[in-house]
């Protein structure tokens, strides 16, 4: 069983560079954003049994310059999408029937580089965005239909490049793990730092909780693994210095640092798969390496070939490691 198969190629139809592509929670809708100021929505069509195709269903117009990033809210909040861009805007879109409309718009002082909706477990519709003046904005939807904003000024001097919401169940400040949720944010930026912020339950402020110093160049992406199976938690950060670092917190002592790998080229984005078992690092112009966690060791398991290879699906199977092996029984008895 090959681990990676091409399912579909999407012709975005954007007239300019595409900056972000995101699936919704179900993997049925796709949002793309581009320098041509548009956000396009694609819907999966499962009619043909041969494979899934994506058909273009909507264009969202509202940005006045390049759109940098989009983020889908958890579907229980409705079909809600947030976008940010070089025009300094944060726009929240909502689909009602077939119509998309803008439900909220905010214009910041400087271009907004990244945006991310909070995990559903926090119980509130919240989103965080990082701007190029170093501010992190946290917007949360209020019961009265308004959006409240908290700002973290000067989170990263020279600009915030990535924000990622933390594991809501990790390291609760009061109560037991699983009982309470804690809102945290990880962010990375042009000061080469990764910082952890925690929401103060009393006044809603976001003080800095930790500062993870290890990169020697701009941090391009940060990803927090949301996984409830473990007490420890993991944050990964990718930087212009070609390093991907793994930060691990066991819930008691503090953050430890490990180098995942020093790549040959700049790693751009990081993404955990839904089970949190694999980490995908996109680096260079067209390379992707997937790492798999095996007892705290992150091992590269597969690498997508360059897109120029025609036969992508077959090609990728060459390095497949099967998940099954025969030693399970022995492992259990030894326990």
């Amino acid at each position, binding site marked *: 069983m090959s681990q990676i198969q091409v399912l579909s190629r999407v012709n975005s139809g954007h007239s300019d560079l595409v900056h972000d592509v995101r699936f919704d929670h179900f993997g049925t809708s796709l949002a793309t954003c581009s320098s041509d100021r548009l956000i396009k929505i694609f819907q999966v069509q499962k009619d043909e049994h041969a494979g899934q195709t994506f058909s273009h269903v909507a264009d969202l117009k509202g940005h006045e310059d390049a759109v940098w990033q989009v983020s889908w809210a958890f579907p229980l909040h409705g079909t809600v999408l947030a976008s940010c861009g070089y025009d300094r805007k944060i726009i929240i879109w909502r689909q009602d029937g077939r119509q998309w409309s803008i439900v909220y718009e905010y214009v910041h002082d400087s271009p907004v580089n990244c945006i991310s909706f909070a995990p559903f477990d926090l119980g509130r519709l919240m989103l965080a965005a990082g701007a190029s003046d170093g501010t992190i904005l946290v917007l949360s939807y209020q019961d009265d239909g308004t959006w409240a904003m908290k700002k973290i000024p000067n989170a990263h*001097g*020279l600009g915030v490049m990535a924000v990622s919401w933390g594991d809501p169940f990790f390291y609760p400040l009061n109560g037991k793990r699983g009982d309470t949720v804690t809102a945290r944010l990880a962010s990375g930026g042009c000061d080469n730092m990764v910082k952890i912020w925690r929401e103060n339950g009393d006044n809603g402020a976001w003080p800095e909780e930790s500062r993870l110093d290890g990169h020697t160049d701009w941090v391009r992406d940060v990803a927090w693994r949301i996984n409830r*199976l473990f007490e420890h938690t993991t944050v990964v950060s990718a930087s212009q210095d070609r390093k991907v670092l793994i930060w691990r917190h066991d819930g008691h002592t503090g953050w430890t640092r490990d180098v995942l790998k020093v790549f040959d080229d700049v790693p751009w984005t990081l*993404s955990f798969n839904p089970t949190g078992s*694999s980490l*995908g690092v996109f680096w260079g112009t067209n390379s992707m390496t997937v790492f798999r966690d095996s007892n705290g060791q992150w091992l590269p398991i597969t690498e997508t070939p360059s897109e120029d290879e025609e036969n992508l699906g077959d090609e990728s199977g060459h390095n497949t490691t099967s998940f099954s092996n025969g030693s399970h029984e022995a492992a259990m008895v030894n326990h």
Partner: protein
Amino acid sequence: MTTNWSSEDVVCELRDVKATAAAIDFSGRFLLLSGRLATSIIDLNNPQVVVKKILRKSRWEVGVAAWNFHYDYRHLIAIGSNQRVDILNFEYNTTDLVDNGHSIKGLTRTVLDLDWNNTDPGLIVTCSVDNYVNIWDYKDLRKPVASLPSVCGASQAKWSKTGKNFLATAHEADCKIWDFRKASTPVEYISAHSSKVNGIDWNPNNANQLATCAQDPYIKVWDITALKKPEVVIPVSAPVWRARFAPFGEALVTTGIPQLHRGDTKLSVWALNDVIAPIHQFSGHTEGVYDFFWRPLRYNEYQLVSWSKDQTLRLWKTDSSIQKQCGAAYLNHTIVLDYHHHDFTENASQRGKENYPSSMASSMFSADGISPPSSAVSPLDKELRSIDIANVTVEDVDLKLRVCAVNVNAGQHLVKLHLSFPLGYPEISIPSFQINTETTLNANAVKQLTHSIKGAFERCLKNQAVSVVAGIRTVIQFLANLSADTSPSPRLEIHPAFISPPTPSPKPAVSPWVNPPPSASRYAAQRTQESPLISAATAKLFGKPGVTTSFQSDTVIPFPRICGACFAGDKLVMWSDAWKLGMSSGGARVMLDRGMSGIFPSELSIRQRQVRRQLKKKGKAERSSIVVYKVDGLLSVHPLLAAGYSNDCMNPTRSFIINADLAEKYERRDLAHVWRLLAVTLSTAQYPGYNLPSSDTDDAPWSLHPFGRKLVDSVINYYRENYDSSFLATLLCILCRSGSPSPPPPAPSPSPEKPLLSLCRDSRAVKSASLLGLEARMSSSRGDEAMKLWLQSRQPGHLRSNSWSFTSEDRSSPFKRLSEEYIQSFPETYLLDPERKLEFDLYKKEYCDLLYGFQLLNKRAEIAKCLGSPPEPHKGVEFLSVCHNCSCDNRGSRCFRCNVIAVSCSICRFPVRGLSTFCLACGHGGHLNHMQTWFETRTLCPTGCGCSCLEALKLP
């Protein structure tokens, strides 16, 4: 708008110098670089060569160095390191550096700053975080001449460059100005910033001007005669380490904090009359700049010398265009510090005793061919008299000082402009102006207006036209627009790291900008010497904002990303537009190239754009750059397995077998194995304690058996390591009845509420008993040791070893009367560790979310109903709908309080809008089709309330 091209004259890397402090001599020819290991002298005429190097034997880094600027004392160099200041001698004749052992030793803390007095040249000031700022006389270093008391230590101390006795010091966020003859109290006290002041600097051309920069991050320029408000405030994006006046014009040069890993490595030049963005940035250093100096080259030509943490020395050319932008267009020719221009063989007696010529005075002796205006009919007078516009008044005209004030009253706003006309006006310079602070505009609008007026003036300069009228018309237009468009205009704050496009205003039609935007004109002007390609791009950039179709990325915009990948469900989406930029060949190199822009590696360079155009012509651009992959193989949970797993807690053994078969079907033989193993070992454990094999009654609960809880724990831990939340959650759900104390064990007389449950349990008891024979065989073959241990543990004498917490009475008759209460009260009897209940719930939640992502909603509901915290029980049958949002009772479909649809479906959790169905007994329900699907195969309520909804409806 800032350009970032480097224009350094000389770069030289001095790796072996390892200096952390630098100082320049009075002539600007020699540079001192000092580090922990050595102190070196560089001749800037030939910077590659170290003229002289002496080794230091110190454990401490050098924090600060200063060279005496006075001609008579030009040989004196002070180097501060830890609590010591060494005074070295530099012999100009032999270019030799001599350490005579002179040093200031009486300090108690690390020296943070030192400065030689320019006019009383033997004096040197030192400051540190102790209670005094000390002033020493070079001739006697044993005791300070004066000590200025300060509560918190000073981080900076600078002598005024023009006034002999004045001194400015920085204390955390505040600044003090001292007259050192009156050392007890400061002359002035400035609450300058909101956080630590990093640097202070006196204007060499204006004795009253002081610049401060701080962590907050602002740069402020103060007039020490009017300290209520700063004269100029420059908001910056990152803390500034040093801000120093340039010798020409009204300009500051700033640098970021060098101690940061890679903060701001650029040297930014700010013109004080236009603080929206730096007018120029010198970029090239790869690490922070420790120090920088101005070096006079020729008449009105300066070189900027910078020494950085990257151990390179750079000499930057500052051509006349930069000086011009600093507002020194005309006057700058005369503000030259002639002080620097003398060769050091010249007579020394004049040196150092001269003050810097004031700009006003020297401008009168301008030798630039433009004579001062004749007293006859001044063209300026004529121009000012000719102004005849409604609602505009000109007042306070002083033709000698060439100043006037203009009041403009339009569109509910009043603006007062103070204009000052330099001598070069209108031929070669523009009037400088200030908007009166008592205006009805907000700060934001003032900023924009300043910009607009400046643009108008500059255009007039280009056309060699008089500009006051144009400036006034700009103001009127601006005010009119402002009144028409009451929506808050966008605030443009340009980040040094981001080259900003013109701000597309929300409504281009009523844009407050005069046309074209002043920033555009300036930008274009700055770029005219550049290649035509860039000019074209600029033109496009500033051409028509708001026309979507014509917009192309031919602008120099920094991209946060143009490629990446993201997981979602069982899919992975990858996108890359890098190839569009022609980066596929040697892309890595191109993307890392910091040459042209140095800011965003992914920024388009001209070459890349060309490649892209070619690609487009060839029609390759149509290729899709977004690829969706199926990556379920990378998931630790197989969606098909997840869909098929049975998690029937009423019939665990059957569930185990079904799951085993399913795992086998999808080639997960390891899982099949484990399911089978669980089937045979755990089926007996459903009735801990009382349903164990054979006739003997003194059984330990099955959970204590090595194949009991231990096995379950081991399996759980193993699959947790493998991220198989599917297996974990399914197992936990199957065992939830035997694992959680919530369901009551069968009472002797079945309770009327739960007749079905009790029946079910009884039948299972029979089944599990019959399976036990098999279990015994299995265990003897697999784990003889474990079995033996367990058998031993069943002997009364070994009870202790089994972590039982029996009291002595219990031990006397062990296991004989294992009643229901007993099982309830002893957590050891449960197969699932009750202490890990919260944790196990998290596993289930994790799996629920995963199933939700897979859109296996029924499966999700099945798992979710086994969660340890069941939903609140619904009481009675009433046609009230309880709002899922605010939990208030409602009689309609919408909640009266929060106006959302009150009822949410138990299966998909979405609000129910269309047809719905609800159980009359428990009140749970949801979408009709969801409920139908659910009850096709099941009889119990999906919420886990225990209601047998199908049965309940049949009740009479």
